[in-house]
């Protein structure tokens, strides 16, 4: 997790990321892939979950505040877009804007008192908030209550963020979402806010003794993280064509935010992508293969995997990759190596 950040400007690893995004942009040109609807679906989900995890990473990984409440922000974003389309017959875009702002506002309002809580008290408070919002949305008539919102047929295209025949439009949207969120986090990493955020994580009092307003930093990180989670939620509802409280505002969804990031490697730029790239195909393919075997075999495998990774390598997949890279680079002094990994 220790990476040298001397030269704020473009570095070798940035070129790697740009190349990756360019490569991914070429995927829809490969007809073998686009013909396989399930594969496209998996790729879209990978990009979506990587984006969600990266949004969480801002406050959870870099900020060190483990929030289990992100499904609330995801849900607010989803409902924002959904309400615009279903309840008001508009294009989703204004709803997306409102949803993101609302998510950020809710995040600041609830985390301000929550930040006074330490450790497990904080984590449990975030569970409590998810459950409260879940129940509230279940009974709230305006947002559709327990039935949620079902999308009507609308005109295809970017204006409505809707495509019916092929998944290519969604794929590009997901790619843009991914590039946007990863780009934001990469930017923050190299600039003052990113340093202040990590300093607060490493030692709040120490950071304050160096002039860092830790409360402002944490709240800003939370607001940004929530707004981006909301944006992901908006994409989700446009892709899924329906939303209800159980689907988005649930503890399970919150855990997905946390798990993908932690298993991938919290506090690193690549972690969210690594986590999504490993977990989503695992989830989707085990469900396709074994989901029919009578409940939960895929989740049994998932559960075991979580236990193994968390116990063996708390730094996640990114930690595993780093260890392997270290061993290849300097087999002689792999133990006492002075090189610091890049990711």
């Amino acid at each position: 997790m220790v990476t040298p950040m001397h030269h704020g400007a473009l570095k070798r690893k940035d070129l790697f990321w740009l190349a990756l995004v360019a490569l991914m942009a070429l995927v829809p040109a490969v007809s073998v892939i686009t013909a396989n609807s399930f594969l496209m679906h998996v790729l879209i989900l990978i990009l979506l979950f990587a984006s969600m995890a990266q949004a969480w990473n801002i406050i959870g990984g870099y900020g060190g505040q483990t929030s289990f409440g992100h499904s609330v922000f995801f849900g607010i974003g989803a409902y924002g877009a959904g309400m615009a389309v279903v309840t008001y017959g508009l294009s989703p875009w204004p709803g997306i804007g409102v949803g993101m702002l609302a998510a950020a506002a809710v995040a600041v309002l609830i985390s301000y008192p929550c930040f006074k809580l330490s450790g497990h008290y904080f984590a449990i408070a975030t569970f409590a908030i998810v459950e409260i919002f879940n129940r509230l949305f279940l009974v709230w008539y305006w947002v559709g209550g327990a039935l949620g919102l079902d999308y009507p047929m609308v005109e295809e295209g970017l204006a409505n963020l809707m495509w019916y025949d092929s998944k290519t439009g969604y794929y590009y949207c997901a790619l843009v979402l991914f590039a946007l969120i990863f780009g934001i986090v990469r930017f923050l990493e190299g600039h003052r806010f990113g340093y202040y955020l990590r300093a607060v994580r490493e030692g709040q009092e120490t950071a304050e003794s160096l002039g860092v307003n830790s409360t402002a930093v944490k709240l800003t990180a939370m607001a940004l993280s929530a707004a981006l989670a909301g944006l992901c939620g908006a994409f989700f509802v446009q892709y899924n064509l329906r939303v209800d409280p159980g689907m988005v505002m649930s503890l399970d969804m919150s855990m997905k935010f946390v798990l993908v990031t932690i298993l991938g490697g919290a506090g690193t730029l690549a972690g969210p992508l690594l986590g999504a790239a490993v977990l989503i195909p695992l989830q989707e393919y085990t469900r396709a293969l074994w989901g029919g075997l009578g409940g939960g075999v895929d989740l049994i495998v998932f559960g075991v995997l979580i236990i193994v990774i968390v116990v063996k390598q708390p730094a996640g997949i990114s930690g595993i990759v780093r260890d392997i890279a270290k061993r290849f680079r300097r087999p002689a002094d792999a133990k006492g190596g002075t090189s610091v990994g890049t990711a």
Partner: protein
Amino acid sequence: MALLEVRDVTKKFGELVANDRVSFTVDAGEIVGLIGPNGAGKTTLFNCVSGLYPVTAGRIFFGGAEVTGLPSYRIARMGAVRTFQVVRPLKDMTVFDNVLVGAFLHGAGGAQAREAAESCIELCGLAEYADKSAGDLPIGGKKRLELARALATRPKLLMLDEVMAGLTSTEVKAALELIRHIREKGITLLIVEHVMEAIMPIADRVVVLDGGINIAEGPPDRIIDDERVISAYLGAKFSRRLQAKREERTNA
């Protein structure tokens, strides 16, 4: 006008009085030492001045403006920056990044801050460790990191809390050089110290705390002879014996 004025500061923890109406000033350009036996309240005073603790009574002024009760980040931004006695490196960040966090206080522009960080790292002899994780440094390195990081904030007043503790005598000499150099750059220093050979040679004035009270103040050579100070450190009996021996010699 003094750069730092501590006026009748009292700090209580429940019934325990850690600082009892302590008053002193620090003028710009000075090196003031804050000494006293263990438990005298030196670090507590530091914590009050830097805003980590709220004072029970009394007022604190920095650069003429009142800072009593301000949060510690505000005081740091005004130019009064402290180091911690038990070092607090930001463990999962590199040495360079640690210092950079300090440098960003007065150089929001990345390039400017990075230059400042690099020069502070050079100054404190940490260049070879720049890319290493701060948590992996040896204790001497961690102390220098604490100093470099505080320096990078371009403070007007630098408050050092027992930087010499645990250093070898070579390291102490190097640290003294560094402190003199810092003063030459125009930074005022308030230094809590236990190691007498480290503080007496460089301090312009020394303030002595004992049991939470300011018992003596003055230039180092006068303080050494002050019987209250000797009594505080070595006990009243020894002080009396010393006093008696001195009188013998002058009478002889």
